[in-house]
């Protein structure tokens, strides 16, 4: 190998400079492409997304099998059938939110822990386009994987439910909502996590904080016997998130779009902090 090196230098008189064009310059489309390459060139991304699919399909399988055993020949009304399928198709993504939260945090903290961030910010010295591109790429990839997972979960659940004469068309409004809002919920959680990862710059700190806010905070608030805690509870991202996908009927904030706004608010706060700190701090 050293011989190769020496040879390539021997004819270096002109070889150091590019023999091909060195491109049009820095552009947001280029940064998007860069982040897409970065995301998919890590095995952890592939594994995480594969796990999202496995968890979604696995949970659909479990729910469908368990529900089928429940019905012993009793006829199920059509609305309830839709409910069964929505639940079976989307329950997995509530577990998958932990996976995409970890993925979102690590998409940026992995750069800090390895030193890659210095290369990234040298290539994109204005910094914010890199964060924005990361956000777009993580959002789109998570959305598509979430969509595929829910579709796969629906197909598996339908196949099992069909044996008990239970079924629901994908075109049912509640089904459609689950199919498209489910991936949206996942993708927003990933972006929220990306922001927190940027704020903390450490994998452990980022994951602990995100999972704490998503999963622990709702429980803690639920345990506080005070009116303000009860009033605040629906506004937590951990409680509002699942309400986007399907209304539980228990939340004080009824509409899906209202809950979507709450989650977007959390994502916005996380993203704004991330952007301010990324811009201000030394890399």
């Amino acid at each position, binding site marked *: 190998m*050293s011989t190769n090196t020496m040879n390539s230098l021997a004819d270096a008189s002109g070889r150091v400079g590019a023999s091909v064009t060195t*491109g049009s310059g820095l552009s947001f489309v*280029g940064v998007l*492409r860069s982040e897409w390459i970065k995301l998919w060139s890590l095995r952890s991304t592939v594994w995480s997304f594969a796990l999202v699919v496995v968890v979604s399909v696995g949970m659909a399988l479990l729910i469908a099998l368990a529900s089928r055993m429940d019905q012993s020949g009793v006829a199920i009304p059509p609305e309830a059938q839709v409910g069964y399928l929505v639940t079976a198709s989307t329950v997995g993504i509530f577990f998958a939110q932990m996976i995409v939260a970890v993925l979102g945090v690590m998409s940026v903290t992995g750069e800090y822990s390895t030193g890659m961030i*210095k290369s990234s910010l*040298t290539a994109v*010295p204005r910094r914010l386009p890199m964060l924005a591109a990361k956000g777009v790429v993580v959002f789109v990839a998570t959305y598509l994987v979430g969509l595929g997972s829910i579709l796969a979960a629906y197909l598996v659940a339908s196949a099992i439910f069909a044996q008990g004469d239970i079924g629901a068309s994908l075109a049912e409004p509640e089904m459609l909502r689950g199919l498209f809002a489910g991936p949206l919920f996942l993708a927003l959680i990933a972006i929220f996590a990306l922001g927190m990862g940027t704020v903390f710059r450490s994998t452990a700190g980022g994951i602990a904080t995100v999972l704490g806010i998503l999963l622990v905070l709702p429980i803690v608030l639920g345990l506080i016997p005070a009116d303000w805690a009860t009033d605040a509870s629906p506004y937590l991202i951990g409680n509002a998130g699942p309400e986007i996908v399907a209304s539980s009927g228990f939340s004080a904030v009824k509409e899906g779009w209202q809950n979507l706004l709450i989650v977007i608010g959390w994502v916005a706060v996380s993203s704004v902090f991330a952007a301010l700190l990324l811009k201000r701090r030394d890399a």
Partner: protein
Amino acid sequence: MIQAQALSKRYGSKTAVDSIDFTVQPGKVTGLLGPNGAGKSTTMRMVVGLDRPTSGSVIVNGKPYREHKAPLREVGVLLDAKAVHTGRSAYKHLLALAATHGIPAGRVREVIELTGLQSVARKRVGGFSLGMGQRLGIAAALLGDPATLILDEPVNGLDPEGVQWVRHLMRHLASEGRTVLLSSHLMSEMALTADHIIVLGRGKVIADAPVDSIINAGGRSTTRVRSPRAAELAALLANPAVLVTDLEPDVLEVAGMSPAEIGDAAARAGIALHELSALSGSLEEAYMALTQNEVEYRTGGSNGLAAADLATSEPQEAAR
């Protein structure tokens, strides 16, 4: 061209870089030297905007780095061989960096060949040796075919062949009219590679001059004289401004006189000379003297020139 004006960086109460001014000229290899903690890396990081100056400014090719339309074409930088995600292959790492500027995959393959990484390009960087990581860092720096190169300790971890390769590469890049700024702890290597030296000490520029001037100013030039009548010659040369040291029975080392003056004096006295060689100081000596000055200046406030007392250190053959 890199121009720093009153550039300062403070971390809390610690001043890493203390209002320095310098210019790094194109067409030359400029070496940045200094003890650990002198502010070399911080200065390099500020050039490419990774660290924000506390005050002052540094511009590259006329503008702050971040304001260039194609930063990677202006400056190629190797700050830390480990500025790479360990889980990614070398090829994908370079491809991702190239993508930001629309640099085609052909250029990625070109820099991989240039740095001799063909056989490992598809392997994950986590398993790379220090030398391989260094080559990858240099490949990344060359991606945009930049007009300015900044390399922090580029020969760190390289084998002798790799060290030589980096030296040739730096010289070649400078000969193409590019600006090359590099730091190294290897003084002999720096003496061979650099045309110009900037020495930092405690965040200040303590020297900024061509390599030859640095060596001449810091180290004291001496002359080795071999003669069968060495003792006689020593007596002849005796003078308060001249220091004569007996190295061996018939070998003298003379400081304070040029070889020509010594030769003339010997000829006038009819003393035969078997050797008359000029020994210039080494960059390492000069560097030690300079940085020692810095320490003494700080602690005792003694005169800079007086502190450059090298009488006790062995003169060496110049490295260049």
